[in-house]
């Protein structure tokens, strides 16, 4: 009984621990909409898009080099690292244009 109590307490403590050393949200998928101020992406198997805001600090990368926001096109595969409190309120820190994901 004591061991079960101890195990339950440990699991509860672990589940409540913030614990992310890497705080960003990461979105991986296909660009569905792109503008200079926002980007929408649909993950594989997802039914809806996720939208993120872009600002002047957002880094757009391809093959390790920085490119302009004009390089973002519908249909491209992209990996977005974004920050925000929830998935509905994300600001992209970095967008990587990557090869098509199978």
């Amino acid at each position, binding site marked *: 009984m004591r061991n079960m109590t101890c195990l339950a307490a440990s*699991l509860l403590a*672990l*589940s409540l*621990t913030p*614990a992310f050393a890497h705080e960003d949200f990461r979105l991986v998928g296909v660009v569905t909409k792109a503008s200079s101020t926002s980007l929408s992406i649909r993950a594989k198997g997802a039914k809806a898009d996720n939208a993120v805001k872009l600002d002047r600090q957002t880094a757009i990368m391809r093959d390790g080099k920085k490119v302009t926001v004009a390089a973002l096109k519908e249909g491209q*595969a992209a990996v977005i690292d974004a920050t925000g409190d929830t998935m509905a309120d994300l600001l992209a820190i970095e967008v990587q244009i990557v090869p098509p994901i199978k």
Partner: protein
Amino acid sequence: MIAPTEPSRGKIIKASIIALLAALVILVTLVLPAEYGVDPLGTGKALGLTAIADPQVGLPAPSAGVGMEYVPTAQGAAAAYAGAFKTETTSFTLGPYEWLEYKYQLEKGAGMVFSWTADAAVTHDFHGEPDEKGTAEVISFDKRRLQASNGSLVAPFTGIHGWYWENTTGQPVTVKLSSAGFYSGGLELRSDRSRKTHELTAVQVGNP
């Protein structure tokens, strides 16, 4: 002047016998218990002499109480715990460009060993985070691109200690991990912000 007289033969024999008996008594009651731990009359134990022949060395008693099973009590290079160590063999599949963190809860000074391999090289950060913010900094023990690693850790602080693995390719990558240690639980965190606790079972070796 009167010349000293030599003791008689009988007196010499008598004195020798007395000395021999005294030596025998000292041997049996004091020397044998202290030097060899042989104590036929129990005098060595009564006088505390048997401890000289067989000095006891022990670790401090392990911490007692709920939640204290994995708090080590250390003496030099050795440590004792109230609970048996745990083991885990598990695997994680990282989708294209996904990352995950997997960490164990360890008390300060608690130890663990591990080995992991991956299908392909991954970005990797073996690190620890203290439970109490401000008590210590997050420490990276090994931060580089790897495909496998074998190692051990003695936790520098109470907190979660483990790995960040990132798949930087467009193909899924599986990471396989085996570990053993005095950890209380495992926590898996993914780039989709999901989190999952791993229930870990202590090895069964019977009570000491």
